[in-house]
């Protein structure tokens, strides 16, 4: 009995050995491969996840599945919000699977790891999901393009709006990793510039299970505004717990990064009146509505700015290959950085030398249940901020690529 099991195990070993050897030999050459590296099952999966993969495929389909004579293939993987899983996958993809471009990578910790791999391998990485401004400052490199938003944009726009509305004293609840810290820092700068004051902050682990003790600390600070420097599931839970503890009666909550899927999960009753600084909303014009409805038909949800960004990034990438006739990263990056781009996601967007895509930014407010007329009618537009004002000016850039 034991012996049989032993043989089974040994056979298993051999099979694995053989299969990995076989898997080795299928290295692609004549295919443009796009890798969607995202959070498929964790706290960011609603705002990106499978939706991002579908968005990427939509862009490929729009180009007819082929570019410059070569077929295009989209593959995906779950980085599980772990930098090591993400970096290993990126390395494997670039080295062995012949992936030419990696897109999405929601989660700044993973993005920071992947951008290093991309720089090492001289292959393209377009980040649509992560927020940390480090990607276009300290950790910038020629192969990295930051597409949709960053913590400077959302933090500054929201921070300024809230201060101007009377929220002068702030206390932050911050996700304890690159993104959260980046968001807290950028918002702090904006708040102070607008005449406000930061009374304190507390950090929490990513995907924290219980926000009560953090909110209690926020409450005892007596700040007028509790700034939530986190995203996705963490933001949702912070807001829910704040309601549970009656904190919203005396203090205002400011979600410094919010996606439409968060509003959907919270419900308009809880989320109404909150400010949302966003790069894109499905109900802005006919182009955006067309894309939104097509996406909705496939997923039963309206796309977030990240998912729309994935569509746009893949589309523009393929168009660039079409123009240059090659998928060589250096040529494509040069083409992308010299083109003014328009599609369902943006009008006249341009990529700067530091890898930052500049486009218009918007300040929305969440509608009350009475104001919402149809499903996913969640936002009303308060103001439009031109790209060169929303994003960090080049003069403040800490990116080594920018020569001063």
């Amino acid at each position, binding site marked *: 009995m*034991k*012996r049989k*099991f*032993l043989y089974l*195990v*040994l056979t298993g*070993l051999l099979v*694995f*050995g053989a*299969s*990995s*050897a076989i*898997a*080795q030999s299928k290295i692609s050459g004549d295919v443009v491969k796009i890798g969607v590296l995202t959070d*498929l*099952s964790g706290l960011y999966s609603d705002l990106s996840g499978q939706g991002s993969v579908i968005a990427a495929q939509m862009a490929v389909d729009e180009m007819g599945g082929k570019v410059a004579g070569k077929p295009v293939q989209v593959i995906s*993987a*779950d980085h599980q919000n*772990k*930098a*090591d899983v993400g*970096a*290993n996958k990126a*390395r*494997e993809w670039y*080295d*062995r699977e012949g992936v030419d471009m990696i897109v999405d990578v929601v989660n*700044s*910790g993973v993005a*920071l*790891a992947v951008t*290093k791999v991309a720089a090492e391998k001289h292959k393209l990485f377009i980040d649509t999901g992560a927020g940390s401004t480090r990607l276009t400052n300290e950790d910038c490199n020629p192969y990295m393009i930051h597409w949709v938003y960053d913590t400077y944009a959302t933090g500054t726009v929201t921070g300024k709006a809230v201060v101007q509305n009377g929220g002068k004293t702030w206390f932050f609840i911050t996700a*304890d*990793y*690159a993104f959260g810290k980046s968001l807290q820092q950028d918002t702090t700068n904006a708040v102070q510039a607008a005449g406000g004051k930061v009374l304190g902050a507390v950090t929490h*682990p*990513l995907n924290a299970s219980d926000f009560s003790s953090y909110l209690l600390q926020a409450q005892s600070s007596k700040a007028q505004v509790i700034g939530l420097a986190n995203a996705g599931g963490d933001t949702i839970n912070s807001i829910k717990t704040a309601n549970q503890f009656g904190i919203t009666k005396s203090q205002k909550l400011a979600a410094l990064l919010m996606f439409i899927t968060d509003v959907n999960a919270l419900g308009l009753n809880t989320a109404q009146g909150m400010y949302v600084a966003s790069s894109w909303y499905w109900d802005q014009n006919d182009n955006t509505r067309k894309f939104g409805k097509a996406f909705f038909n496939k997923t039963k949800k309206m796309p977030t700015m990240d998912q729309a960004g994935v569509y746009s990034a893949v589309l523009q990438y393929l168009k660039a290959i079409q123009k240059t006739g090659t998928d060589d990263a250096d040529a494509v990056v040069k083409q992308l950085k010299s083109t003014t781009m328009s599609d369902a996601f943006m009008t006249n967007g341009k990529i700067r030398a530091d890898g930052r895509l500049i486009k218009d930014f918007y300040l929305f407010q969440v509608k009350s249940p009475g104001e919402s007329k149809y499903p996913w009618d969640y936002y009303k537009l308060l103001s439009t901020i031109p790209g060169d004002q929303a994003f960090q000016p080049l003069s403040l850039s800490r990116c080594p690529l920018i020569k001063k």
Partner: protein
Amino acid sequence: MRIAGYAVMLAIGLIAPHVYYPIFLMRILCFALFASALNLLLGYTGLLSFGHAAFFGAAAYVTAYVAKERDFSPAAAVITGVVVAALLGTAVGLVSIRRLGIYFSMVTLALAQLLYFICLQAPFTGGEDGIQGVPRGHLLWKLDLGNDMVLYYVVYVIFLASYYFIYRVVHSPFGQVVKAIRENEPRAISLGYDVNRYKLVTFILSATLAGLAGSMKAIILTFVTLTDVDWRTSGEVVLMTLLGGMGTLFGPSVGALFVVTLDTQLSDRVGPLVTVLIGAIFMVCVLTLRRGIVGEIIALYRRVVGNSHHG
């Protein structure tokens, strides 16, 4: 006969990077070393440390930090990491050796968790982001470790040297005493041996080698994250040792080969089910395959050879 076997294994090790992805192989070597380090403690002393990732991860963090932020050469960085692991091993060992059996395991687990949270907070570890972009550097001014192939052979040499070291320790008079302690501790005490000191020294050696594995991992994969000090990593390496064969020389390496391959091949296709599979293998091992793969092979071999001698 034995020498032929070793020669074959050596040859496989030398040709392997030309057939398989070198990074994948180096991960196997790292974990094989890590598991063998644990085996020194578990297989030969009978002490189950469930917090060995603390040494692995701490050394990895230190190596990554000094290599990236302080411009240490890879050799110096690795040595620094190993030294830190040894010191940490001494501290943890002193606290935990006093407890026997299962308490020892729970204590090591809890102490490792303490280190995990310290790593989470400490500024230099980068918290949840970890440390990325660790420079590979050059060895002996000539060998460019940025080249995966070159790095592989360097790692392979270090691996073989460590293995030889373990072999010597196990077969030394020191090793004999340690085995005696595992077999019958009261008797060893009555023979006048300072049992605790032997256990402590073994613990420190084990922690140091685990640290070496961790330091190498930092250089090979160029990043370190909290996963490296997570108790799940400790659990995985216990599984490798158990599955491969506790108390055998090659068991842990076989276990590492199996588990890393499983992890790499399956984690894309089935995600969290890999955890389920690993857990299930663990359970089966404990119930029926306690000697591990290599242990069973050795037992089989002995039965066959033994029969032919008596026949």
